[in-house]
């Protein structure tokens, strides 16, 4: 695993976050802009992915457009019950990811289910199993993101 990034690597990480053109040779334009051969761009991109600087290269799907339902949830878990509650929450396959955060509401997870009804049902089951309230924070609106890693 390589631990140093060259200036070229960083420029390429930024550029690879832009939308890839839907053409037979989608890396041709990047190669031209960077003064590289197409194969060099592809090899560099693969190395960046293999070294873990990129988690993935491919389409970003709108999860809801694919037909699922998603909801951010939060719980205030007493410290002395944290591991017990965590085991119960994570046991649900519907819990897609889960983060501990430094707040009274210290457990934040995303439920991913087939339908909206399944969100409410799963949250209700977790409340029953833990005796703790599950706050639901469904997305009401998503704002356009201009984020690029300033690599």
């Amino acid at each position, binding site marked *: 695993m390589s631990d140093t990034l060259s200036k070229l690597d960083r420029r390429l990480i930024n550029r690879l976050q832009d939308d890839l053109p839907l*053409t037979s040779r989608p890396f041709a334009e990047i190669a031209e802009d960077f003064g590289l051969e197409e194969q060099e761009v592809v090899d560099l991109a693969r190395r960046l992915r293999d070294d873990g600087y990129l988690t993935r290269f491919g389409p970003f799907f709108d999860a809801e457009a694919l037909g699922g339902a998603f909801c951010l949830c939060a719980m205030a878990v007493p410290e002395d019950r944290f591991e017990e509650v965590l085991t119960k929450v994570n046991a649900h396959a519907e819990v897609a990811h889960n983060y501990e955060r430094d707040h009274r509401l210290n457990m934040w997870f995303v439920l991913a289910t087939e339908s909206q009804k399944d969100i409410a049902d799963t949250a209700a089951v977790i409340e029953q199993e833990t005796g703790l309230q599950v706050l639901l924070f469904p997305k*009401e609106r998503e704002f356009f993101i201009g984020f690029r890693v300033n690599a």
Partner: protein
Amino acid sequence: MTLHPKDRAIVEATQAGLPLVQAPFEVIAETLGMSEAELLERLARLKEQGVIRRIGAAPNHYRLGLSSNGMTVWDVDDAVVDELGERVGALPFVTHSYRRPRALPDWPYNLFAMVHGADRDEVHAKRADIADLLGDACRSSDILFSTRILKKTGMRLRRKER
């Protein structure tokens, strides 16, 4: 929304990523038994429909040294939250931004913006930038740093039982 079976097959074939070769769509088309032209057409339509947002790299924030992530949350006047939310989302250091319902009385915040930085100081500085942008429209705010990843699974389209 129900996906056409061919589109569903495209999602399944690409959700783990595209092959990093000069002609990645040709490779995918071949595995799906369709022409490259049809694949490109279908991908273009999926983009128009918003099913695909973009095709590109997902950077690994941690590996790139952005190891601190703070969920900044804001109580913003409902009359202007959408307009300001757009501007917050457009900031170059915000990775996600959503309007969500408040959970009163415990949780007065209706705008969420995820901020990544090299350390907490950097995230705090960026939070201050967001506060400046929101100005008087914001009544209160908080920041929740993640202290541990408790579970992380890719959100994958599950294969339909056949």
